């Protein structure tokens, strides 16, 4: 009966606008997740969203679904607890790269290993944005941020190989590639096992503008020019988005 409102039924429309800055890509991802929910007609009383801390972490509260806002990095084990307690639920983690690949990376490693049947959507903006723009685990080498004013001495992590090794579902997509993003999220929700969708999305205010981007659209156009789609590949190159082939 709430079919008539489409993807909007999954959002608390009265809470909009979101707290995200003008030009932020998070809203695009939030909408696309809801569109994927709608495409699969996920039941509102059978779907739960869990998020960690950070800009992306604010997503959970905007879903018109049961949700938990966990401590920093702990979204995945909390989601696993929910799934193990009630296997009938669709359990979706929505959080950022700092949360999932930094402070919570240990949990990611072991959830892949346990093959827990949950879906993770990672808003990958390459920065700790909520705290003002400090280097994250996927900030590129040599990039200047507030905690790497001389350029990042470290190298970004790439977790696709972990999924490859454990037959999990991994996809990389971007905020520019809307149809591809929706396809990846829909597939990941249907996947029977642990699935992870890394969505490259832009933070103009606490990242892009310091790198010389004039506006958010320039970052979006950068994704358009940089990324080539390579679905069901053995491995994704740095300039590729796509889905990693999995045998399970």
């Amino acid at each position, binding site marked *: 009966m709430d079919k008539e409102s489409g993807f909007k039924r999954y959002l608390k429309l009265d809470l909009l606008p979101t707290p995200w800055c003008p030009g932020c890509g998070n809203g695009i991802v939030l909408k696309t997740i809801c569109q994927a929910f709608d495409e699969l007609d996920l039941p509102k009383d059978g779907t739960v969203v869990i998020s960690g801390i950070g800009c992306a972490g604010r997503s959970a509260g905007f879903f018109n679904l049961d949700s938990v806002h966990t401590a920093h990095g702990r979204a995945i084990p909390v989601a696993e607890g929910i799934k193990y307690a009630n296997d009938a639920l669709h359990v979706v983690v929505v959080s950022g790269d700092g949360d999932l690949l930094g*402070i919570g990376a240990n949990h990611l490693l072991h959830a892949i290993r346990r093959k827990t049947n949950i879906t993770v959507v990672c808003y990958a903006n390459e920065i700790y944005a909520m*705290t003002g723009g400090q280097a994250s685990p996927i900030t590129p080498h040599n990039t200047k941020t507030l905690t*790497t004013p001389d350029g990042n001495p470290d190298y970004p992590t790439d977790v696709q190989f972990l999924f490859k090794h454990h037959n999990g579902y991994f996809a990389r997509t971007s905020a520019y590639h809307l149809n591809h993003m929706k396809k990846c999220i829909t597939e990941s929700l249907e996947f029977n096992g642990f699935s992870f969708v890394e969505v490259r999305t832009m933070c103009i205010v606490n990242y892009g503008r310091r790198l010389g981007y004039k506006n958010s659209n320039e970052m979006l156009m950068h994704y358009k020019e940089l990324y080539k789609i390579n679905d069901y590949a053995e491995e994704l190159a740095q300039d590729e988005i796509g889905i990693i082939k999995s045998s399970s």
Partner: protein
Amino acid sequence: MSTTFIEGSIAVAKTVGVCRPQVISAYPITPQTHIVEHLSELVANGELKCEYVNVESEHSAASVVLGASATGARTYTATTSQGFLLMIEVLFNIAGMRLPIVMTCVNRAVSAPINIWNDQQDSLTARDSGWIQLYAEDNQEASDMHLQAFKIAENKDIMLPVMVCMDGFILTHSFDPIELITQEQADKFLSPFTPQYYLTPKNPLSFGTMVGPDGYMETRYFIEKTMQVSLQVISDVAADFHNQFGRFQGGLIDTYKVEDASLVLVAMGSIIGTIKDIVDELRAKGQKIGVLKVRSYRPFPKDEIYKALSHVREIAVVEKAVSLGYGGILANEIKSVFYGKPKTPKINGYILGLGGRDITIDTIHQVIKDSVNVLSEEKFIGLNEALIKR
């Protein structure tokens, strides 16, 4: 001496910088970020010769400085709230290994529900960790305290970590005219760190090794004994600082118009400034009122507090934290000061300002009004009645 109009966080970072730390590790968390961002800048532009390590969590940040300190390096980290709680396991390790690390705990409320604003629940939760805890009233004191902290921590009779606690946003993000400490002044006050024991292949040592029931208890006994020794060292270092810089913000405690007071408010941190204004206002109207600042919370200076307050008839303890199931943390410790003493004043405890709720002049007036009237159970002041009755 000249002053610079500067943000509290940047003043703290500059003071830490002139203390010449050799390894800094931190993870970003609001409202600590400006401190560590500025330190990373000092390192990047060559003003500070130091390894600055960006890590994946506060647990790792504390572990990095633990390792670095064990090799004999002077180390520093900073965090707040949830990050502080994540560090706690390592904080106990650091104290147990007697490593003189200095950290800033920017005071912020703890989750859930998540709240980024100021109270002092985070650091008070780790009061039993073996860290010396100092609380700053204003940004000048917060800045100065870090130089003192290294000197206290590295004293060969102490060798315990020191935590400087400063109220998030209220201090960290406010601008004040600050007398900054120059490199030359810092070098005169603080000698290079020369640990008696540290990791070196020439003289192999183990830190934190398994100890059974035969030896563990003594490690706690020694830390407790050292805490008692540190009471004198904290006072001495504050006096040394006074001598060199001409600034004195208190040793273990500080008092304001307490000598002839019949009512004294007791508190920690930035709220002291608000209370001082009210003390002046009420003094002008003839009310004998004063304020006592607890500057060193661990070690807890029972004797100094008793000496300062033994003549007082009424005490009101105001605090921005609560031991759920027990009441005010500081209030109960102040009560314990008078245990077994000939005369016990009326002591009331007030919990206020949790999660950043404003503490206005009116809030403190409510405390004073209530305190003068009755001997009460601990009370929450400034509750939103509409939310409670809902």
